[in-house]
């Protein structure tokens, strides 16, 4: 990792730690309890930012895949792969924290009747299959193109998954951001949520940079080893 990148990663990590500690403290001790769900609603402050981060990474991975297909520049392959990798990690966290919230709110770990949950699971499984596709072909331009096309197809599922809760219109998985009369929560809750979202995004960006640097070093070492062999 170059010196400016190290400074950027350190700044992001510091911002992530500060925002997460502050945001979680505000969410637990300062934001009011939800009138309907009570204390269990506090999971919202970690579950939703993690889910939005997963979506962001899948979208970012697709953008990098598009750049690869349009420029044929191999560096976008590693960037797209790293973004999908991060998206799957945050996707798994979304499923686990969501299940815990479902158990305390609905009394069950999972509901197959909820389109939002099932569509998120479909997106997660789709991107999990990305790794099987990637490692079933030899490294090279063909693998890069196949992986890019797969990542691009997956991004089409994101708006469907994101909008599913609005399409479903059920009360189990409530809509809180896009009501006709604005955000459907007190400003204290919204502020705590925004700080937590900033913290999770900063943490994810730090992980992305570190992971990408690690993968680049790995690739360089492999090349060097082949030259020395």
């Amino acid at each position, binding site marked *: 990792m170059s010196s400016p990148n190290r400074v950027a990663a350190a700044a992001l990590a510091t911002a992530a730690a500060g925002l997460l500690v502050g945001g979680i403290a505000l969410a637990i001790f300062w934001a009011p309890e939800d009138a309907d769900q*009570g204390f*269990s609603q506090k*999971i919202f402050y*970690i579950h939703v930012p993690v889910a939005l981060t997963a979506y962001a990474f899948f979208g970012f991975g697709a953008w990098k895949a598009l750049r690869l297909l349009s420029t044929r520049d191999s560096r976008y392959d590693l960037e797209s792969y790293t973004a999908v990798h991060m998206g799957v990690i945050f996707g798994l966290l979304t499923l686990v*924290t969501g299940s*815990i919230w479902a158990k*305390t709110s609905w009394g069950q770990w999972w509901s197959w009747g909820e389109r939002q949950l099932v569509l998120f699971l479909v997106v997660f499984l789709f991107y999990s299959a990305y790794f099987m596709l990637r490692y079933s072909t030899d490294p090279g331009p063909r693998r890069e193109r196949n992986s890019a096309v797969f990542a691009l197809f997956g991004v089409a599922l994101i708006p469907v998954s994101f909008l599913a809760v609005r399409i479903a219109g059920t009360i189990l998985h409530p809509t809180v951001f896009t009501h006709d009369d604005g955000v459907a929560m007190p400003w204290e809750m919204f502020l705590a949520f925004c700080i937590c979202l900033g913290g999770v995004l900063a943490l994810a960006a730090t992980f992305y940079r570190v992971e990408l640097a690690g993968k680049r*070093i790995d690739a360089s*070492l492999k090349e060097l080893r082949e030259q*020395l062999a």
Partner: protein
Amino acid sequence: MTSAEKYVLAAYLVFLAAVLAYLVIIALKVGRLEQELADLARLARERRGG
């Protein structure tokens, strides 16, 4: 501690555990890369010397 508090704590602990697990994985990866770099540097020195 109420049942809701236990579930909220569990959700936040899952998040914390994931962050810590990632840090451990990265630390192991850095250790492996350092070892590989040291091996390659030794190999390059041997090539130059021999």
